[in-house]
């Protein structure tokens, strides 16, 4: 319950509704590290990680936290048995059943804008359906925000957005504001962290010498993660074609295509364009290679260690402005210099702390120059790697999750007290139901 000064949480539930196991994307990865850090920092509490039924977890009894496999039916029991519940995707009804529980909403992206971008392509044939679907999505987000006692996001810009969202919903309580005028007990940024594992040379090569065309002496650029609508791999391909005029030992590997558990996500229009352009420029399977399966979380380390450089290009738009690209943290982990497009908070960090080179959007020459600089200037390259290593110390999961640890120790929320939210909640929930029903019927 949203109280002024809460008791330390005895039982913490982390609810992971996305794919969990060896092949997982960011929600699963985040949940796993969250469970590790909370179990370590809250020895007096029981930490439970609930993952979808059928998730593949070898030796769950060896983990420092409890593993539960949930089904929708079991979910209510799990929430019942815990004090603080953390998830990034709640079934709204489940939240309504237990108004006295403390709900932490772990939103590390601006879902509304991300879905806006995703549906642009997928539902382009029917604007009306998309409109209806987005209206439902907006209400669902609104309902989740209304239910939550604490919101964690990925960076300061997202914090500003969600404070705006809370103002829009009428969730900023004057009394709570007086106690906590910075609203730290309502919204706090928790960026993605860097995995704690030490860097080890891979036991067997994964790219160099494995793909016909990537020699062990080649310089390897890695594109870590899927090719979604808002990425711009085409600029990178054109830059690579330019670099190839001078030297042919620079190879590019796209690693990770289809997202686990999300159907064809990652193999959409932008992906097709990339393949086509690679063929057109004569780079396909000569300088550019595609490893399309989602690489297991443990295995991706080998890819990173083998690579010499990471590049990620995208458009400087609203998605970029708010994003914290989780794909960058593994690049940082492997101490790789990064070439990325300007506009997001990590690009700002790369520029300020010189962890690589930041380029303007769609600037082929700048990308080509950056690649040649980093692969041509040994001294600069080594110095950059050292700076990345130094910078990593402040970005471990242990450091990042501190606000959440503090909240579990003392779950005091600055959200509007729940009984005051009840009318709004009822409104939001019914609006969501109606919007969803409309979304089903509109063609």
């Amino acid at each position, binding site marked *: 319950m949203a109280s002024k000064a809460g008791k330390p949480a005895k039982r913490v539930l982390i609810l992971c509704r996305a794919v969990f196991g060896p092949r997982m994307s960011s929600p699963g990865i985040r949940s796993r590290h969250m469970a590790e850090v909370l179990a370590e920092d809250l020895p007096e509490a029981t930490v439970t990680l609930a993952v979808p039924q059928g998730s593949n977890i070898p030796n769950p009894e060896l983990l420092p936290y409890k593993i539960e496999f949930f089904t929708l039916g079991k979910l209510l029991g799990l929430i019942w048995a815990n004090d603080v519940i953390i998830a990034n995707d709640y079934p709204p009804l489940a939240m309504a059943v237990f108004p006295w529980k403390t709900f932490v909403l772990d939103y590390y992206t601006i879902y509304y804008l991300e879905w806006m971008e995703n549906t642009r392509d997928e539902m382009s044939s029917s604007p009306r359906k998309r409109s209806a679907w987005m209206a439902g999505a907006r209400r669902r987000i609104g309902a989740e925000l209304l239910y939550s006692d604490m919101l964690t996001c990925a960076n300061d*810009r997202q914090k500003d*957005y969600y404070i*705006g969202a809370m103002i829009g*919903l009428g969730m900023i309580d004057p009394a709570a504001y007086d106690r906590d*005028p910075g609203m730290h007990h309502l919204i706090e940024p928790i960026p993605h962290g860097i995995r704690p594992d030490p860097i080890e040379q891979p036991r067997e090569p994964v790219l160099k010498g494995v793909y016909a065309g990537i020699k062990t002496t080649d310089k390897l650029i890695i594109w870590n993660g899927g090719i979604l609508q808002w990425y711009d791999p085409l600029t990178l391909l054109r830059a690579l074609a330019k670099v190839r005029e001078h030297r042919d030992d620079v190879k590019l590997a796209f690693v990770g295509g289809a997202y686990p558990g999300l159907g064809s996500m990652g193999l959409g229009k932008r992906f097709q364009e990339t393949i086509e352009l690679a063929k057109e420029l004569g780079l396909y399977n000569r300088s550019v290679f595609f490893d399309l399966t989602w690489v297991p979380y443990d295995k991706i380390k080998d890819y990173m260690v083998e690579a010499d450089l990471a590049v990620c290009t995208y458009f400087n738009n609203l998605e970029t402005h708010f994003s914290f690209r989780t794909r960058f943290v593994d690049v940082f982990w492997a101490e790789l210099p990064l070439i990325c497009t300007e506009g997001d908070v990590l690009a700002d960090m790369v520029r300020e702390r010189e962890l690589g080179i930041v380029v303007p959007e769609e600037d082929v020459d700048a990308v080509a120059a950056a690649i040649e600089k980093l692969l041509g200037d040994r001294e600069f390259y080594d110095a950059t790697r050292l700076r990345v290593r130094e910078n990593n110390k402040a970005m471990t999961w242990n450091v990042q999750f501190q606000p959440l640890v503090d909240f579990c120790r003392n779950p005091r929320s600055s959200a509007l007290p729940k009984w005051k939210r009840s009318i709004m909640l009822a409104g939001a929930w019914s609006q969501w139901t109606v919007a969803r029903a409309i979304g089903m019927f509109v063609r």
Partner: protein
Amino acid sequence: MTEPKKIMVLCNAVVGSKMASPGIRNFNMARILQQELPDAQVTLALPPKLPSDLDPNSVDFNVAWPSQRELLPLLASQDIIVTPKFPIKLLPFALDKKIVLDLYTPFFTEWMEMSKGDPSQRHRRAWLEPKRKNLIAQMAVSDLILCANERQRDLILGIMGTTGLISPRAYDADPTLERMIKLAPLGIRDHEPVRRKNILKGVHPGVKETDTVLLWNGTIVEWYDLDLLVRAVHKLSLERDDIKLFFMGTEHPDSFGAKPLQGMGGGATKAAMELARTLGILDTHVFFNFGWASNDETEQYLLEADMGVCTYFENLETRYSFRVRYLDQFWAELPFVCTRNDVVSEMVDDLTLGVAVPQGDLTALTDAIRKLATDRAFNDLCRANLRELRKLYTWERTLAPLVEFCRHPETRLMRRRERAIGIAVKSTDWMYSQTYYNVRYAIQAKAKEIMRKRRGDL
């Protein structure tokens, strides 16, 4: 020949020789619009209830003081209306107008701070709700929203995204939403600073020519931390006798009609005076200029002072603010001592414009003041950096997005029908909260007042 474009800047604050930030901003909007669009007919509409010594003949644009009745026909005759707050009851008539909403501050966070002293949280909430809903209704009808910094922009996006004001159609037409929400910060005074005869140093009783003057160059409002500043000056007064703090004005120009020290910020001013008196430094080291400094006086204070000081707390108001007093410091190249957490304090750190200190840190604050007072080279460096920065903050530059919009008012992102629905839904929502407030509090207060008067008559 086409009709000249009619643009109105609808202002709800005082404009004249004494004005605070809203007045300054609106005045400059009218001025720049007329200057950049000579063919347009620009009108600055001012509230008739507030006194103004603005001479309509001294400016190029039209000035009007429309009464409530005159307002509607005046609005109806315009093409574009620029305002921080459109009269909500007239919104239905704005369906075919282009509206520019000027959110140079996010307002909500200010209301939250302003209402802090309210003894009843229930009353406070009832007072806030209609204001919040009014703000959302304003957003629902705007064709362009102006804000002062990136953080404000993110905040506004959050409000709009959650209240259904970013539709897929609008998003596709403008995926960065840069056409919908633009940055237009405040600007600096439009003439070069000229130092004339001293009016403070060696003139004001207690301030010697050789003293180091800390200038509080703006209003005093509840959300500032005067307590800490007065204590810092006290601490410094124990080690040296030449550091003087001067508050430029005690009466907010927009709380017209209030008795001295009863208007906006009156309580905070009195508390600061009381503390200075207790510490024995009132009128020896801490000075208050009662009333409000005129434009000319303000300029002289700025040019005579050695540093500008402003202390506050880490809260939402601070996080999103862009304080107009800082623009005056840019203009006068006056080094900063300020609290961290707002956007300008980040600039102070990054560009070396002075010293930014953590909130509530007495030692850091005294150290900062001492550094700027004694380290001449550092003080000069800050001034040189401010001279560079100043160039970026002319009103011509900061208001360029507004001028651009008025030159080519684009077809609006929201369709007429969507807009009509927006007005209907959001103003109904507002009406509900406003009625609640009126019935529960306003009418009651009015009744009490009438009763009191009657009793007084008897």
